[in-house]
């Protein structure tokens, strides 16, 4: 597992890379089967807003297909769409940003409901290889970025979840 220090350095570097327009390679940042390709310039300065603007050019069905790629239960995305809980392109831009700019591995997208009322509470994005201390850091950094780029609605309706961070020891 990453240490907190390395994790922090990695995130800082990712931000710096984006800021300085440093390119790691010239390949599209996304799989062509998801019907979506960014130019190298877009990769260089990929902010949440830029990611969102690129996704706005896609049809909704393509965005849905992309999101389903990240979930273990495709019906989850259909349910979020049905309820109109979130702007799908904003959700997708967050996932793209997490995976490409921060280079995190998103393993699942799900949601939590209020078990008493059935009300959808928040969408969950599960991230691999991220422990308790990294989770605390990641939550704050990502939400600060979301709010600063005008994605307040996503910040309040999405919970980032570090699977490793949920584990506890002792008995």
């Amino acid at each position, binding site marked *: 597992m990453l240490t907190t220090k390395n994790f922090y350095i990695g995130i800082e570097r990712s931000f710096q890379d984006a800021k300085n327009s440093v390119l790691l390679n010239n390949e599209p940042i996304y799989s062509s089967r998801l019907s979506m390709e960014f130019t190298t310039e877009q990769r260089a300065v990929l902010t949440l807003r830029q990611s969102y603007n690129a996704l706005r050019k896609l049809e909704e069905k393509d965005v849905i297909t992309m999101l389903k790629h990240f979930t273990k*239960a495709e019906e989850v995305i259909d349910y979020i769409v049905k309820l109109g809980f979130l702007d799908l392109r904003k959700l997708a831009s967050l996932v793209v940003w997490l995976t490409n700019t921060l280079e995190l591995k998103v393993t699942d997208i*799900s949601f*939590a409901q209020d078990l008493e009322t059935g009300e959808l509470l*928040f969408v*969950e994005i599960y991230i691999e290889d991220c422990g308790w201390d990294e989770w605390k850091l990641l939550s704050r950094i990502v939400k600060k970025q979301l709010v600063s780029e005008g994605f307040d609605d996503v910040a309040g309706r999405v919970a980032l979840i570090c699977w490793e961070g949920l584990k*506890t020891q002792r*008995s």
Partner: protein
Amino acid sequence: MLGGAQDPEKLNPRKLLKYFLELSKDRANVSDEVVIRRIISSVYFALFNYWSLKTYLKGLRGNGPLRDSFRFKVFNEDLLKQGLDYAVFTIYSRRVAVDHYTLNPTKVELTSQPWNKVKIEVKINDAVLERVLNSAFDILEYLEKY
């Protein structure tokens, strides 16, 4: 008038959390599962009550005859916007486990839909209690400035 004269600090759970923290240092208490379950459940609702009163006093209104009943969704949204994801999810998922599930360890689904595949394994023990209390103090720090 119903909220203007109220002091939001009367629902500040800091004393309660400190009391729970002291309790949790005694091995005899944290080996009692009933004690752990009831602490975790009350931590969530103590924070929720404090947030609700502060929200009401800000002029926002909820449901009920006096419009002082707020939804968990709004509470969670507020905390998630602050980047308290780890704290919200830790406390909420454990609260569901201790109030809705009986086995220990158990597997929790945070949804009533049977097709959702995410199952979280939850142990109800001293380590979980420690995480919940740490998370609660982080949430409280934000709520006291709210």
